[in-house]
């Protein structure tokens, strides 16, 4: 389904704080009343980084959470754009275009499993809050990262905190030593109604592989939030192509920004996705 852009709007907001939440992970909190009032879990905003012509393009960020008229965004300062955002001070202006993209399919009953890899944590606090608002309390978070310092703090996935947050690190510095996908098997025993995933492409591929190889019935809602180098964020530049399966099992390009970023995991061309360069390449 192509995203509904009718609620997307340009909005000039104000930075409340840029907080370091552990390791290199930063959280930008900004007063953006329109975005806070309209963003659904899984949707994103295109934020300008500075006011000049370099960096030129906006950067897409999942709306991590909303509270009254404020929004949170989770990121790391890895490039020119996020470097500028990392240095924002309270009171600085922030220029948002959103909400954009399709959100997660929201279930009415659990259990729900959220699988996060690294900064893939970003869409989950808003999702978990919305699921709880609908009465879904049986929520499990599987949280992985390369190393302990890059794990999004468990207590930030929900307020009040989600009771079950299982952690995994590639280097074994916290939790299970290995891929977060390895934590899936026990979570599947509860026959979840929904599984939501977000993280680097190799991790998402490992999640799908683990699910298929487990032989368990796959959750009815099985969705991943994907990413791609993005130009506009609203479907006109056609830059953010992702390989998806067509009805005949062939591969077709879909747009991350308006066909996604949330995609049905059954519909992803995982082989094609694994062959793409990493998101850092552009």
């Amino acid at each position, binding site marked *: 389904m192509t995203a509904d852009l*009718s609620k997307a709007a340009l909005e000039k907001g104000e930075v409340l704080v840029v907080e370091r939440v552990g390791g290199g992970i930063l959280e930008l909190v900004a007063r953006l009343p329109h975005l806070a009032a309209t963003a659904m879990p899984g949707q994103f905003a295109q934020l300008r980084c500075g006011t000049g012509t370099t960096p*030129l393009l906006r950067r897409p960020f999942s709306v991590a959470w909303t509270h009254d008229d404020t929004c949170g965004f989770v990121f790391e300062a890895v490039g020119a754009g996020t470097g500028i955002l990392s240095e924002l001070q309270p009171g600085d202006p922030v220029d948002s275009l959103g909400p954009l993209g399709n959100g997660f399919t929201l279930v009415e009953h659990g259990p729900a499993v959220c699988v996060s890899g690294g900064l893939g944590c970003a869409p989950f606090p808003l999702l978990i809050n919305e699921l709880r608002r609908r009465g879904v309390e049986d929520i499990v978070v599987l949280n992985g990262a390369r190393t302990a310092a890059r794990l999004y703090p468990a207590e930030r996935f929900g307020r009040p905190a989600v009771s079950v947050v299982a952690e995994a690190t590639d280097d074994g510095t916290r939790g299970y030593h290995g891929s977060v996908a390895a934590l899936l098997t026990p979570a599947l025993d509860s026959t979840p109604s929904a599984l939501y995933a977000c993280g680097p492409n190799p991790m998402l591929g490992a999640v799908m592989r683990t699910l298929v190889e487990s032989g368990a019935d796959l959750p009815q809602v099985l969705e991943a939030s994907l990413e791609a180098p993005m*130009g*506009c964020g609203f479907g006109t*530049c056609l830059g953010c192509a992702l390989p998806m399966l067509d009805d005949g099992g062939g591969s077709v390009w879909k747009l991350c920004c308006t066909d996604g970023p949330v995609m049905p995991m059954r519909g992803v061309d995982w082989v094609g996705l694994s062959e793409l360069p990493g998101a850092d390449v*552009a």
Partner: protein
Amino acid sequence: MTEPGAAGVDLGRGLILPNPVGLASGTAGYGFELAQLIELDRLGALYTKGTTAAPREGNPPPRVAETGGGMLNSIGLQNPGVDVVARDYAPRWRDWTIRVIVNIAGGSLDEYVHCARVLEDVAEIAGLELNISCPNITGGLDFGRDPVAAGQLVAAVRAVTERCIIVKLSPNVTDIAAVARAVEEAGADAVSAVNTFIGRKIHRASGRSVLPLGTGGMSGPAIQPLALAAVAAVCDAVHVPVVGVGGIVDAASAKDFLTVGARAVQVGTATFVNPETALQVLDGLGV
């Protein structure tokens, strides 16, 4: 349609733009997304995504890469094909007042002619922009680089359409004025200049080109002085109206093109950054 004698920009063959500010091909799709975001009908023209005879899937990603003051793209003319545009898209333009000019592209002369024929009787279309300058498909630049081939292409399309033909020129040539003169002589009603500049970006950690095909088309504010020089040369070379495009970000940078002789402008990459840029240009120009 604009009444005869009303203010506007006359591009020829009855195509009168309500005002000179348009959205450049490849940056506005077929208008449906931006129609949800901005007051599209205040603008003069929408130049659609390059449209080919058959559907095109486009190039593998990454398709975009940011550069200093600009970006590279290698979309590869992803489009649904001219039949879908004529049958499914055009009816959705029926109530729009913005003039929809379909940009057509192809790898062969026959492909352009086919597209023009399919679109000839579609009432919602105001004109054709011939993309003889896409750097991201095989063959797309061949017409744009050679004045003789460009002239033959325009003459062939001219023979099958009564519509206004605007020919979009490539800046990736030694003498853009020669190509402009050739398409004017072959029957073009107007020219638009310029398409993107060929550029390359290296992923420094690997030493590989970021874009899978190596190069892409560069756009954005960094190219505005380059585009301006090309447009000035074209304006000096032809008598038909010139539509200036390349790196416009505000009214001032748009006015530069009018100053060197362009009759209208197109806003491109700046729309990605701020979808309201073209409207701001229009308001700033006070036209």
